[in-house]
């Protein structure tokens, strides 16, 4: 599992590769918070290379979304496969997040 971060225009894009679970979610949280502290406002998390996400992974997304909004920023999610979509639907978190089908759409929407 690894989190690749890069800048695309004025958007910070994070690729979640592998699992986002209790064992590594702090790493994602810290990386995004570091960027937020540096003054970044637009965040896109790309799940195109993600395996499964557990409740603590979902919890980190909820927490980041709050913190980013507090700083006047925005968090978008993209590229959820059908299983991940179901996970967001089951927990109704699809109503809390802005979820785009592709990274391109997500980038355009900021």
């Amino acid at each position, binding site marked *: *599992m690894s989190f690749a971060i890069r800048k695309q225009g004025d958007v910070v894009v994070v690729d979640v590769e592998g*699992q986002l*679970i*209790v*064992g590594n979610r702090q790493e994602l949280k810290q990386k995004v918070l570091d960027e937020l502290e540096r003054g970044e406002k637009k965040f896109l998390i790309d799940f195109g290379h993600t*395996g*499964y*996400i*557990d*409740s*603590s992974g*979902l*919890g*980190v997304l*909820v*927490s980041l979304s*709050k913190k980013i909004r507090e700083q006047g920023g925005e968090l978008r999610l993209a590229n959820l*496969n*059908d*299983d*991940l979509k*179901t*996970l967001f639907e*089951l*927990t*109704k*978190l699809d*109503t*809390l997040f802005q979820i785009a089908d592709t990274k391109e759409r997500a980038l355009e929407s900021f």
Partner: protein
Amino acid sequence: MKHRSDTVAMSPIPSHVRVALELRIPSDVRYIERVVEMVTRQCAELEYHPRQLALNVPVALTEALSNAILRGNREMPSRSVRVRAEVDRDRLVLEVADEGTGFDLEACLVDPTSPENLTREDGRGLFLMKRLMDRIERFDNHGNVVRMTLRRHD
């Protein structure tokens, strides 16, 4: 061994196959991913549905393991978590045992989709286990055991 897969492919599949996997891990969340991988692999061999392999089994098992490690065992190095997975072509039975004092499953199960809970960071574990598995039980056996059952889909 020099197997040719076409060779084995010609040998018919047993009429009944059941695999029981027994694992013990320290109270450390880093072990979760490997355990999940070992269990889903056995389910994959028995042709569980791709969604069960990618969603139901890994997420429910991860929740049960992290609860056992963090809640039941409170990450104490002297405690370990035992996992038993019994799989056949009908169903998967997962048992995750910790050395804690147990908990009240019904009381701890909150609805994380209610408006007041939706923005909470925690409290989705038992809910997901319940929604992703066909059955979930809790009982005591020298500690706390959570048992989850999932019927195989093609």
